[in-house]
């Protein structure tokens, strides 16, 4: 079943003579439970595509339908709410809230969703154990390694029980061991939580793990291979 349907999606930066077509009339669909990687050279439009799917960057034209709803027809407030309930984000630079502990970072999004305290506590424990840093629940991001921070970011992304997670170059700042651990965790969560993962990446190890690899060149799909 298709949960994300992208139709004729185009993004053009700067409407003047120097305009750049970052995404060019792109059509894609993602099924529930996919573990997909979007690859391509720098400037091929990977991040722009993820930002448009994530409701962060408005497309110049085209549609992003998620569960049958064109998200770019939603008001700004409804779009924010939509992101909160349906989309999890993992960023290249972890981007945890520095003043909150690992546990609080994970809990924060559930608080925004208005989930009760006991449910939050249970979920924090569950997720931090799943990403292997239950013992660092009380640590702030500056006391965690890059790999640990990215694992908290994954736990945070999953905390809201999203329909899918968008991960923009999640392993770019990690060493080999951390990358391996993170990928194993995400793969496991993809199966146990039945959540769709869409990565943009340059990393061959991520590509190797992905069950579907979409290659973008100049904003167009060059290949789309399912393993």
């Amino acid at each position, binding site marked *: 079943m298709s949960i994300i349907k992208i139709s004729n999606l185009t993004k053009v930066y700067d409407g003047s003579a120097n305009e750049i077509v970052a995404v060019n009339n792109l059509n894609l669909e993602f099924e529930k439970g996919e573990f997909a990687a979007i690859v391509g050279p720098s400037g091929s439009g990977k991040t722009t595509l993820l930002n448009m799917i994530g409701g962060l960057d408005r497309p110049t034209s085209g549609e992003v339908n998620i569960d049958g709803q064109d998200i770019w027809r939603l008001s700004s*407030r409804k779009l924010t709410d939509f*992101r909160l309930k349906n989309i999890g984000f993992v960023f290249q630079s972890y981007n945890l*809230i*520095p*003043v909150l502990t690992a546990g609080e970072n994970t809990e924060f999004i559930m608080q*925004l969703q208005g989930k009760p305290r006991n449910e939050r506590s249970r979920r924090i424990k569950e997720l931090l154990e799943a990403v292997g840093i239950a013992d660092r629940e009380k640590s702030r991001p500056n006391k965690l390694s890059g790999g640990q921070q990215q694992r908290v970011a994954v736990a945070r992304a999953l905390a809201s029980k999203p329909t899918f997670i968008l991960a923009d170059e999640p392993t770019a700042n990690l060493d080999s061991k951390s990358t391996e651990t993170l990928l194993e965790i995400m793969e496991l969560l993809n199966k146990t939580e039945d959540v769709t993962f869409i990565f943009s990446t340059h990393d061959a190890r991520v590509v190797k793990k992905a069950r579907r690899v979409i290659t973008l060149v100049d904003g167009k799909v060059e290949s789309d291979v399912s393993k």
Partner: protein
Amino acid sequence: MKLLKIAWRNLWRNRKRTLITIASVFFGVLWAVALSSLQTGSFDNMVDNMVSFTTGYAQIQNIDYKDNKSLNNGFIPDEELYNFLDNNEFISKYTSRLSTFSLIATGEKSYGTAVIGVNFENEDKISKLSQWIIQGSYSGDDPGGVLLGELLANKLEVNTGDTIILIGQGYHGVQVAGLFAVRGLLKFPISELNRQILYMDIGTAGDFFQVPGTVTSLILMVEKPGTLTALMKSLEQIDNPEFVYLRWEDLQPQLVQLIDGKTSSGKIFIIILFIIIAFGILGTFIMMIAERERELGIMIAIGMNRLWLSLILFLESLLIAATGVFFSFIFCIPLVNYFVRNPIKIGGEMGELYGEMGFEPVLIFSNEIHIFLNPAISIFIISIVIAIYPLISVIRLKAVNALRA
């Protein structure tokens, strides 16, 4: 909700900068409270002194006396009026005075002086006149004796027991002259009074100026200045078209002007102070938001409502203000209360200068609640106004641009 916790922790991400901003609020409030306390205390004291020494908080006069201060425009209070004053709940004390001007002479010297006929017993309850006696007695056996201001006595080169001559104009212009013994000398903290004042018994004065039983004004005092308006309203019940009822502000417009002028300059100083504080806090916020643009973008991206995000920044502004005000109060409430109980006396040449200018040479502080509340409210309003900047920043923030920051 974690908003308050996040706001509080955010403040301490750059400890030094936050402490400097809090310090600016601390010192701003401290200065504002100190200045306001000193001004209010000094003005209240000035009013109380001036009102007690001279006009009282309110006066009943003949309607013509207001514009023409002649003995011809005095009046003779009847029993009914005295009964009304005795039973008025707002009047704490009252007395009658007969005021005029006269020439005072001894030997080859003569000067103009204010002559105030008073009931010495009642007058002392209001102006505490007896405390200023430096020589002789306040209410001796000689009811015809007079009390002189020290500087006037010095100019005339008289002492207690000496005799002075009063030459003046009585009722309907009649020429009056008489000899009076100096019973005592008064030294007020206000030089102007020492230079040109003479007190005598009101009965003696009435007889001397040929207006027996007449008063030029009835001086009314209230326990609390706040009840003055109620007193003025109650006086309307007297319903005598011959009378006019005046507040101290009507009787001492110069004092009102002086206080207004000083208050305005104080307010301008405080406004400038708060503007400086406001820019300090605003500067801190501009830096905080610039540093956290990416983080704010992340929060919006993961689904945080912009309004809540603005609320975090607003709370940060409020917490800086509240912390500064809190520590300022911890410091300045005991300090102000100490100075309320222990006014600073100004000695030496500066003290004399104060006296020359007509002020009591003492710095008196006040601890009225508005002195503390006004700066606190001002700071909170500033923090609310400053919070508009982050609010606009957050509303205008594009998450995707912030993520690239």
